[in-house]
């Protein structure tokens, strides 16, 4: 069996890309290891400061729960929608794709001002809680990521034939969606979910202007007061995001989900 040959130019590009992405991270990591008193290497004190700060855990928990809530709402909203659009009204696909681009076009600062004005006077359980107002805003923000991931997943499978095969065997709509369609777009749904997670974990503008305390707000607060712990918390936030991506890879590699994995990769 012949070995795959990689062109030297490709290797050079890979190295350049690796350095481009890794140098800032390595720099932050080395910086975070400096001693507070001397500014020299090496101590994990900054990490200790962060993990022993109750505000870190509180804000991290808020952001993680917000991420899960946003993901749950997005999946509940978009999976049936994209499924029905693919199955029954495919001519609506360009319309949805256009709508999905709006969060890219409208800057978050404009969006949050609009949303704050629009929902002013709504019940406190919604307007005054991150689980209400903020989650709603994040669903809008995550729309393009979730939509395009799901759309790719649905395009990778033969929705019509699978649905008809399932129905001819006696399955109703919900059974078909739950047992046949969802498992085959699992990786696409996971890809959208983790993109959503990454967005929510890093979103600053909306949370800040609507005065909620989330993980990015905490990072900013630390950054204003302590240099080394700020670098440490930045590195830790990368770690959390990468752990999420790794779990996507591991779940996506599960056997029997070939089509869905391909969809997720596209």
């Amino acid at each position, binding site marked *: 069996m012949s070995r795959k040959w990689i062109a030297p130019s490709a290797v050079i590009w890979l190295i350049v890309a690796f350095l481009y992405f890794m140098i800032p991270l390595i720099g932050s990591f080395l910086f975070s290891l400096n001693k507070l008193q001397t500014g020299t290497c090496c101590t994990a004190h900054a990490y200790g400061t962060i993990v022993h700060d109750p505000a870190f855990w509180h804000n991290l928990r808020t952001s993680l729960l917000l991420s899960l809530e946003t993901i749950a709402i997005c999946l509940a909203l978009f999976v049936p929608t994209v499924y029905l659009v693919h199955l029954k009204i495919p001519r609506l696909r360009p319309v949805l794709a256009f709508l999905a681009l709006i969060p890219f076009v409208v800057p978050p600062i404009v969006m949050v001002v609009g949303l704050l004005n629009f929902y002013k006077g709504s019940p406190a359980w919604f307007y005054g809680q991150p689980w209400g107002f903020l989650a709603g805003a994040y669903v809008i923000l995550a729309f393009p990521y979730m939509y395009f991931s799901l759309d790719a997943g649905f395009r990778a499978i033969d929705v019509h034939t699978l649905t008809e095969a399932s129905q*001819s065997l006696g399955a109703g709509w919900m059974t078909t969606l739950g047992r046949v369609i969802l498992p085959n777009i699992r990786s696409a749904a996971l890809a959208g979910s983790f993109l959503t997670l990454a967005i929510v974990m890093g979103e600053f503008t909306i949370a800040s202007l609507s005065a909620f305390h989330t993980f990015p707000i905490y990072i900013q607060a630390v950054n204003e007061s302590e240099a080394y712990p700020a670098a440490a918390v930045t590195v830790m936030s990368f770690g959390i995001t990468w752990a999420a991506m790794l779990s996507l890879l591991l779940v996506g590699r599960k056997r029997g989900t070939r089509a869905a994995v391909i969809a997720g990769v596209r």
Partner: protein
Amino acid sequence: MPYLELNDLHRDFGTVKALDGVNVHLDQGEFLSLLGPSGCGKTTALRLVAGFDRPDAGSIVVDGKDVTHTAPSKRDMGMVFQAYSLFPNMTATQNVEFGLRIRGQHRVDRRKRVGELLELVGLGHAGDRYPHQLSGGMQQRVALARALAIEPRVLLLDEPLSALDAKVRVQLREEIRRIQLELGITTLYVTHDQEEALSISDHVAVMYGGRIEQMGSPAEMYSAPATPFVAEFIGTTNRLEATVVDGGIGAVEHRGVTLTVNAARDRRRGDRVLVLVRPETVELAPANGDPGPNTLVGDVVTQTFLGPVTRLKVVGQAADLIADVPTAKAATLPVGTRVAATLPAEGARLLELTDESLPAVPEEPAPADR
């Protein structure tokens, strides 16, 4: 009373009449093939029976019960699709038992039934494989087992072999017929491959333009086509336009040559007719001297090797026909040879020629080409 009835089915898609009054009556356990070119309405008819689409008019009755407006999940129709339709997230076993799970059958009974069905389709060893680990032929076998698992009232097959290579197709179609006979299941089979339809069906319905042109046994369809379209679509036919000159003896005139065709007896003098002659009934011999009766003279212009027979195209002043001759004999009639083509008086069919132009048969790829 017929087991499956399609009564005057109509279905339009915009301005296109996909079905224009289709009637089918099928007894229990019979195998009917809907045969026709692309766009003739055969798949639309099948989808109406499956419940994936609704007719604009007409009714579908199964075992005396009108199911025209019943949801597909409530019809108990097993369907095998043209595209590979196995659920990618399930093994072959899980695919086959899907319908049984929906019906709440006990796990032990379910597994027993699935094992039997996988054995029936020759895949007892492949139950743990996922669809992407199976060949196209194996996937369609699993799809067949899956459709049979629910003990459907009618088995529907929508060109299930069209994506397979020629050898697997022949093998699998014979297996489909064997299983259908073994289980005695009423079957509706859609295909555009006439060889496939003729080889496995009790009845064949040739469709064109949303209508059934003719329905009958495979032998009837081949030997007694009712319309020029059927004659052209089922097998290969020479079509000779002629005029009756003497109905008493069955004499017709074709391009200045008088031919005797028994089927032309009792026709009125001057009637315009279409004489249909199968290529295998045409006899060729080198043209020496005066041509005999019922003979057209021409030159061999092409030879196409078909295995046991070779197809010769003969073109002359009065002749433009094809003849299938034994391959050994074809060697004595190379391209360029002047030949006398003798037409049978007995075997030729006759159709009345109307002023309407004959429908052209859309070209379908030959089985070997796919």
